[in-house]
């Protein structure tokens, strides 16, 4: 059928008029915007409420420059894991092994750099290779042998924990050379000077805001050119201003502490890259298709095995990145490193709106989910809440988040009938 391949003329308005229209057109109001994505917006609202709550409970310490820096440094590796985990979960799988893989990759790196005296970057490279190999191992069993990921990665959790002990010979290794430590503990500052604050951090913040504004405006123009509904212009401006305010506040606080953490740059690059990969590439879209309806994906020609394989390779890669960050932060490798990390990463994905049945979830949502967990842990630590109570609270939050997801789905199902 040839007509679907040829755009009819009337669908293509001139770019100029589309750009002009982008400044005033608007077909969807706040209400439809909120209801259209209640699952996601609920998470953002919850995040703001939790931050506000703990800011009050800790008399503002939570949002102090030093503490914000701390949160970033402390939870970056969980967020890196959550990026990979949400992709695994969208495809309808799970990965229980990531904590063990963090330990193994950190251990390999430590053995090479600390014991054997290789350069820091050799350690990083070796860790990444090991992570990819582990991912390929999981991918092989899940995709080509057809064993459920729960089983494969449960086995992997035991297997790679055991290998970690073997590699480390049951002892901890420490310390790393300072270059290696900089990965998780280093800062970029002083590049542009500043008095009492780091101008470079503010510049990066401003740069990020500008990039965001340009990108969403271009999306808006394209949407209008293709006659799609967009939010009203004041609402659009309000959204950009809100994001800009949050980012600049965050940058301001960081600038007044120790500057821009290197690990935040790594995290930022990964988040942007994976957000784009999941939304805009064939691979990303096939991940959603597989999780949404496996049979339909198969019958639409999606190479399900290949996609599943690469999902796990990617998870292994990101586990290795987390392993490098964690070993760098803890300045060494321990046999018990990374225990329970998988549960934090899984919780982040689910709190961030991923569906237990697959097919739903976003990288950004998982980041917000992870930050909710991070802010809660950090806030409770600042308040001196007992570890046991912290665990109870985190467990309840996870349960409520998934209950909310299921409630939403049931309501959605009723509406469709």
């Amino acid at each position, binding site marked *: 059928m040839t*007509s*679907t391949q040829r755009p009819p003329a009337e669908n293509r308005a001139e770019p100029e008029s589309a750009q002009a229209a982008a400044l005033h057109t608007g077909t969807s109001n706040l209400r439809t915007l909120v209801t259209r994505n209640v699952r996601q917006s609920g998470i953002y609202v919850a995040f703001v409420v939790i931050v506000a709550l703990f800011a009050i409970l800790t008399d503002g310490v939570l949002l102090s420059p030093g503490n914000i820096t701390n949160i970033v440094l402390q939870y970056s590796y969980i967020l890196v894991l959550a990026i990979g985990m949400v992709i695994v979960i969208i495809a309808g799988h799970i990965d229980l092994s990531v904590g063990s893989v963090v330990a193994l990759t950190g251990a390999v790196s430590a053995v090479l750099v600390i014991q054997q005296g290789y350069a820091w970057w050799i350690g990083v490279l070796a860790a990444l290779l090991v992570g990819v190999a582990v991912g390929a191992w999981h991918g092989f069993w899940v995709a080509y042998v057809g064993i459920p990921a729960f089983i494969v990665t449960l086995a992997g959790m035991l297997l790679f924990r055991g290998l970690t002990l073997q590699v480390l010979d049951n002892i901890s290794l420490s310390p790393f050379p300072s270059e290696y430590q900089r990965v998780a503990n280093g800062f970029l500052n002083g590049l542009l000077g500043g008095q009492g604050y780091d101008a470079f951090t503010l510049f990066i913040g401003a740069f990020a805001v500008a990039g965001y504004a340009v990108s969403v405006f271009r999306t808006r123009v394209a949407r209008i*050119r293709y006659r799609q509904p967009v939010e009203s212009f004041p609402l659009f401006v309000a959204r950009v201003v809100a994001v800009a305010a949050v980012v600049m506040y965050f940058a301001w606080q960081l600038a007044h502490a120790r500057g821009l953490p290197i690990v935040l740059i790594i995290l930022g690059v990964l988040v942007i890259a994976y957000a784009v990969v999941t939304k805009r590439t*064939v691979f990303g879209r096939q991940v959603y298709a597989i999780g949404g309806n496996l*049979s339909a*994906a198969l*019958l639409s*020609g999606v190479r399900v095995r290949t996609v599943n394989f690469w999902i796990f390779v990617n998870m292994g890669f990101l586990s290795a990145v987390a392993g490098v960050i964690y070993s760098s932060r803890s300045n060494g490798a321990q046999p018990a490193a990374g225990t329970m990390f998988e549960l934090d990463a899984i919780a982040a994905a689910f709190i961030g709106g991923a569906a237990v049945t697959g097919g*739903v979830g976003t990288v950004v949502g998982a980041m917000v989910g992870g930050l909710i967990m991070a802010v809660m842990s950090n806030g409770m630590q600042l308040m001196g809440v007992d570890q046991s109570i912290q665990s109870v609270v985190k467990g309840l939050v996870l349960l409520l988040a998934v209950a909310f997801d299921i409630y939403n789905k049931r309501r959605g199902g009723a509406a*469709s009938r």
Partner: protein
Amino acid sequence: MNDTILEMRGITKTFPGVTALQDVSLVVRRGEIHAICGENGAGKSTLMKVLSGVHPAGSYDGDIVLDGVPARFHGIRDSEAVGVVIIHQELALVPYLSIAENVFLGNERRGRGGLIDWNRANAEAAELLASVGLDENPVTPVAQLGVGKQQLVEIAKALSKEVRLLILDEPTAALNDTDSAHLLDLLRRLRDQGITCILISHKLGEVTSIADAITVLRDGRTVETLRTGEGEVTQERIIRGMVGRDLESFYPDRVSEPGDEVLRIEDWTVWHPTQDRKVVDGVSLGVRAGEVVGIAGLMGAGRTELAMSVFGRSYGRDVSGRLYVRGREVKARSVSEAIDNGIAYATEDRKRYGLNLIEDVRRNISAAALRKLASRGWVNGNEEIRVAEESRSYLGIRTTSVMTTVGTLSGGNQQKVVLAKWLFADPDVLILDEPTRGIDVGAKYEIYTIINRLVAAGKGVLVISSELPELLGVCDRIYTLAAGRLTGELPVAQATQENLMALMTKDKEAAA
């Protein structure tokens, strides 16, 4: 002798938007084998679900009188308690449990202290197996038995519940001839022992040889009840009852100008994925450009299995045969290869196999040919929206936006999304499996119009349908399948519902 065991009076059952049964009556006499015949969708299974309490009392109108007593069943347990047992087409056995465990499942033989008395259970199971003529050890796992023997286990299970009225839904659909003959013999023996049977079957040869009475349903209504010894009961007579309706729906006109052959299948054979039998047996057929070709066949004839095995071997094992697209032999070993070679298949079950219901219209439409919208792996989201919008207006998909979740659309609009997906893949030949199942008359007409536009653009279309009037209305040529074999090919001018039904119910021997 006019002893009535069951009388169903004025049964009306509606589902949202559909009346499945309309004032249906059924009178079954004690000790007879009573067959129920009708096309797919005539309401046979629904009637049996009403009778067995799957649709509980109160969800339908009308009365059921069993042995003179009004019956109001609220579930399977109620109906089984008074000896009405249904054996479904899909067997309800647990494969990893033994024969005895399956026979007494939910009805366990308890000994002292409430524990199961396995000796007693196995002994009683052995007796039941003997009575159905199955020579197997009761401790054998059911998974080790063939379908024919599993069917006998189901009957043994029914007998263990002291059955008075045994309902069998398509019991021989999955059986070979020998097993079918055994089963029919067993039903005769059970009748002689005083067990009344209701038999739902598409195999009219079987029905005429075994049934004492035949009730014909059509479009959810009782047409007639024929009794042997009260006038002629032939297959032709039953077929007339099954199909004898006016063409209520109508079909858009089309000028047929067939061109070169776009699809040819030669000697296509497919084995069942787990059982040791051929589901498709040596089928050869062809579709020409600009031609709509129909495949008629009853449930279990192998229509969907044929289509799916052609579509990148997505069904069955040991698929053999040759496949040509536009005269060139192709090896479509995976779905993506099939799509690349110009074959598309729109499934009969759009919700399970056709659509990602939690995703929006746009992404469902692009799913099968996403690569056309991408360069180096990057999807052009704006082009995707344009394509979706174009499909929406071309096919008349009624939705507020292409961003609407597909799960919220009506059946007809969902079907159009499935078609849009395959049209965007731009195939040479499009296989449509039950393209109008579960959608209303208006949407059906639109689907037929779309089919006509496709063939006008030079595609070949292969339509699988259970509705003979539909095939007669849209096709140029119709093949018939029975038990996996091609039993006939008729130009539409020569085809009638009667001669198609005769070919569709043709026995294997006659076909060979």
